[in-house]
C-alpha cells in the first residue's frame, strides 16, 4: 500500500517534470523540470529493487550531467531576447503527440498481454552492487572495456573542442 502511494507520487512528478521541460521557454526552468524527472526515475529504480542503479542515477544524472547543464546555462548568461522564437510551439507539440500515440498504444497493449507478476519489494540481493559486478566483469567484459575507451575519447574530444584556436568556423561566424 505504501509502495503504491510512493509510486503514484513519483510517476506524477516524473511526467510533470517532462511536461515542464517541453512547455517552458526559459531553458533554466526546463533544466529544473528535467532534474525533478530524473530524481523521480531514481526513486522508481529503488521501488524496482535496483539499489545500485538508484545510486548511479542520482550521482551521475542528477549530480553530474544536470549540474553540468545548469553550470553551462549560467556560464553562457543567456538573455531573454537571445532565445529562439518559437511561435508554432504548441501546434508542433500537438503534432508530435499525434505521431507518438500509435506507438504508445501498441506497446501498452503488447505489455498488458504479458502474465502479471508480483512487483512488491523483495528481500533478496537482486540489484545489489555485487551481482551487478559479477555480471559486468564476467559476461560483459568486452563492452565494459569499450565503454572505458569511449569515455577516454570523450574526455580528449571535449578538451580538443574547448581549446582556443583561429579556425575557419570562427571567422565565418564573425562575417555573417
Amino acid at each position, binding site marked *: 500500500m505504501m509502495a503504491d502511494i510512493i509510486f503514484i507520487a513519483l510517476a506524477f512528478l516524473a511526467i510533470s517534470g517532462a*511536461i515542464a521541460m517541453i512547455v517552458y521557454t526559459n531553458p533554466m526552468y526546463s533544466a529544473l523540470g528535467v532534474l525533478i524527472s530524473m530524481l523521480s526515475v531514481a526513486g522508481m529504480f529503488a521501488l524496482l529493487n535496483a539499489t545500485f542503479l538508484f545510486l548511479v542515477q542520482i550521482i551521475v544524472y542528477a549530480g553530474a550531467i544536470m549540474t553540468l547543464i545548469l553550470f553551462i546555462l549560467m556560464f553562457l548568461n543567456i538573455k531573454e531576447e537571445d532565445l529562439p522564437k518559437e511561435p508554432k510551439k504548441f501546434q508542433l507539440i500537438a503534432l508530435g503527440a499525434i505521431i507518438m500515440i500509435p506507438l504508445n498504444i501498441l506497446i501498452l497493449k503488447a505489455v498488458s498481454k504479458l502474465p502479471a507478476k508480483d512487483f512488491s519489494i523483495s528481500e533478496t540481493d537482486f540489484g545489489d552492487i555485487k551481482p551487478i559486478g559479477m555480471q559486468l566483469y564476467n559476461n560483459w567484459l568486452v563492452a565494459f572495456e569499450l565503454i572505458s575507451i*569511449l569515455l577516454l575519447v570523450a574526455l580528449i574530444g571535449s578538451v580538443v573542442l574547448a581549446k582556443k584556436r583561429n579556425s575557419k568556423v570562427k571567422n565565418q561566424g564573425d562575417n555573417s
Partner: protein
Amino acid sequence: MISLTTYAFVAMMLFSLGVIGVIARRNIFVIYMSIEMMLNGVNLFLVTFARYHFNMDPQVITVMVIAIAAAEAAIFLSVIILLYRSRKSLDTDVFNILKQGENS
C-alpha cells in the same frame, strides 16, 4: 495496483515526451535534455523488465547507457559552447555551417 503496465506507461510517457521535445522545440539545450529524457524512459523500461524476469542483464545494460549518456554530455555541451561563441544564438535553424550550396 503496481504492475508491469503502469511502469510501462510511465516509461513510454517519458520517451514520448522526449520525442515531442525534439520535434517541437528549437532551443538546442531543450533538444539535448529531450534526448536525455528518451534515454531515461528506455532505462526505466529496462529496469522494469529486469525486475519482471529477475534477470541481471538489463541492469548492466542500463549502467552502460548511463555511461554513454555521460560521455555524450561532455561532447554535446562543448559543441554547444563552440556554436554559441561563433553564432551568438541557441536556435537550431541558425546552425547551418555544414550545409552545402548557398553561403549563409
